[in-house]
């Protein structure tokens, strides 16, 4: 979808943000060389500290109204990156720039107090497990209205109106029938819809979704995916969509970035990347997805070993040990940079 075509439907009488069609059309969120290292305890005797390089030198851009999928195995740093994007944790180095509605680009790291609160109304998160992300003692109304209360938006009547509107929007209709139910009275799909309504109630420009459908049942999953796509189209929201499932990413994202041990190893347009993966890790990941076609013989996955934690990693390609294409050169050279490899594709590999 072209971000310029995004139609901003202003449904919210008490929306915090207003005009999204300002000068900064184009980029919504920009992460520049962001790294996050976690210190590991060195034990009693050794005083030496080691570091887990959870996210290492990541640069990415989410266009306004666009959707970027972050794909990788568990433990690759996807969730850490998501938390960095929203400043739920502070980066060790690098910068996160949010292109604000009114004030132009702001460095998320420097925000404090009121500004940070304003940023929070613009950037929201949807979590993986709808059984844990909603307070069991809150009614649906309480859960969805809470962000409004925190941000001090509207009075009780306006909030009630806004919450009903959101519930209708996420397909929980009639809203009156759901407002005062508790989470335990809802199905998994309905809970995730409540979580989505809660994330969108303030009219954010950016939503970070961390595996929002992986806990849901097959039939429900398609519904939630469709809903999220519709909302993106109608409201012009930008998504950072985190998933380990390439098939889901295909339906949710314009662009995909593949992550391996804290590094982005390949990124590009979704269909193009899935049809013609360049990095050996992307190829392996893609060839490991079961195909629902019994006549299709899937090629063997050509990597061995398993992903390990990047604790004080050597400065060389992180994929070296498992790579079927590795040569001597890869062993000695520093980690390859994420470079253009034609057709708008970026990949970090010496062998492409």
């Amino acid at each position, binding site marked *: 979808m072209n971000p310029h075509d995004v139609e901003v439907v202003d449904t919210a009488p008490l929306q915090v943000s207003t005009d999204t069609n300002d000068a900064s059309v184009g980029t919504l969120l920009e992460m520049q060389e962001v790294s996050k290292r976690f210190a590991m305890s060195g034990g009693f005797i050794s005083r030496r500290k080691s570091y887990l390089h959870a996210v290492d030198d990541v640069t990415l851009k989410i266009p306004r109204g666009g959707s970027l999928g972050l794909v990788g195995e568990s433990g690759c740093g996807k969730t850490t990156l998501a938390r960095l994007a929203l400043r739920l944790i502070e980066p060790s180095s690098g910068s996160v720039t949010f292109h604000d509605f009114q004030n132009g680009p702001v460095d998320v790291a420097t925000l404090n107090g009121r500004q940070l609160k304003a940023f929070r109304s613009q950037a929201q998160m949807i979590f993986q497990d709808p059984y844990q992300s909603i307070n069991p003692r809150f009614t649906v109304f309480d859960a969805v209205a809470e962000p409004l209360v925190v941000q001090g938006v509207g009075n009780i009547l306006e909030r009630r109106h806004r919450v009903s509107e959101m519930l209708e929007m996420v397909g929980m209709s009639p809203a009156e029938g759901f407002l005062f139910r508790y989470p335990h009275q809802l199905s998994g799909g309905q809970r995730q819809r409540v979580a989505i309504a809660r994330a969108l109630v303030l009219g954010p420009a950016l939503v970070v979704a961390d595996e929002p459908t992986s806990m849901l049942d*097959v039939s429900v999953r*398609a519904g939630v995916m469709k809903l999220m796509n519709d909302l993106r189209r109608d409201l012009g929201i930008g998504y950072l969509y985190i998933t380990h499932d390439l098939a889901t990413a295909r339906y949710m994202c314009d662009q995909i970035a593949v992550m391996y041990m804290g590094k982005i190893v390949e990124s590009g347009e979704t269909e193009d990347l899935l049809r013609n993966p360049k990095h050996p890790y992307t190829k392996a990941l893609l060839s490991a997805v*079961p195909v629902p*076609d*019994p006549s299709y013989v899937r090629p063997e996955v050509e990597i061995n070993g398993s992903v390990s934690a990047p604790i004080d990693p050597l400065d060389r390609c992180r994929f070296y040990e498992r790579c079927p294409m590795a040569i001597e050169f890869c062993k000695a050279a520093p980690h390859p940079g994420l470079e253009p490899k034609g057709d708008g594709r970026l990949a970090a590999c010496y062998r492409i």
Partner: protein
Amino acid sequence: MSRPLLEVRDLTLRYQTMQGSLTAVDSVSFSLDRGQSLGLVGESGGGKTSLGLALMKLLPENSKLTGGRILLDGVDLFHLDENQMRPYRWNRISMVFQAAMNSLDPVYKVGEQIAEAIEAHQSVSHHQAMSTVGDLFDLIGLDRNFMNRYPHEYSGGMKQRAVIAMALSCEPDLVIADEPTTALDVISQDRILRQLRLLQKQLNMAMIYVTHDIGVVAEVTDYVGVMYAGQLVELGKTSEVLSSPRHPYTAALMSSFPSVTGEKKELVVLEGEPPDLTVESEGCRFADRCAHSTDMCRIIQPTLVDHLGHRYACWNPQDGALERPVTHRTELPSGDVNGVPTR
């Protein structure tokens, strides 16, 4: 004709709940030979796991098998009591439980846990049991050194393998695997599925895979049964059911499943929710969500009818011409090949 290893006839399982009694498994019949695998798919609450547990007669207190037969090599397990069941469990039928991550005891070494399972079911010494565990580790692709480690030292994929090793420990005839790879990422899943498939053929076991992933079914099973609201609504060869599903529920399930290969199709959302099982109903249980239902569907329940080995319970079966996209995919280059041939 030789007798199938497992023959299930009209098996019915009912639960007593606060909301009333419900039928979780409703007159299910199928059979399975040695060396063959059956996939059970459907939404959660469809009765897949209950059916698996019923076959092992590992049932919660509030449930009761109310009818049917479970013939294992001609012996009806249905009427056996707990003591009589013991020689069959694990020795003849074993199970890989859902969330295998949590089915290992965190304070015992993994090797010891598996040995304990063997000693409980076979009269062997601890030493013999431990040597069997070593063999099992080789078989399932785990490092023998990990026998003396604790579960927390294992990765997710390794725990899954350990649990599978435990299920294979007494060389059962039938293994029921309940979502064996759901919690794993694709690369570990791929390895474990390939290994399971191989072992199943090597050891000539029958396997039942309970899963919601149609991709997994397509790859590892010979037959597939689709469950809806406790009933088996379609059953047949996997290749046939997936290429031409007859029951509208099967078709809907398949088209709501995103695929990474082929043309990108619009995902079809199956509206509505499975019926409340505490409410008895006449007619087809899927009728309210079905795009093809007629008045007939709401009055008379269709039964599973055999059409040349492909069985389905539907008054208005689909013609089966499900659009299967042409699969095209890149091939992995081998070794040091640089180029990427595109098919």
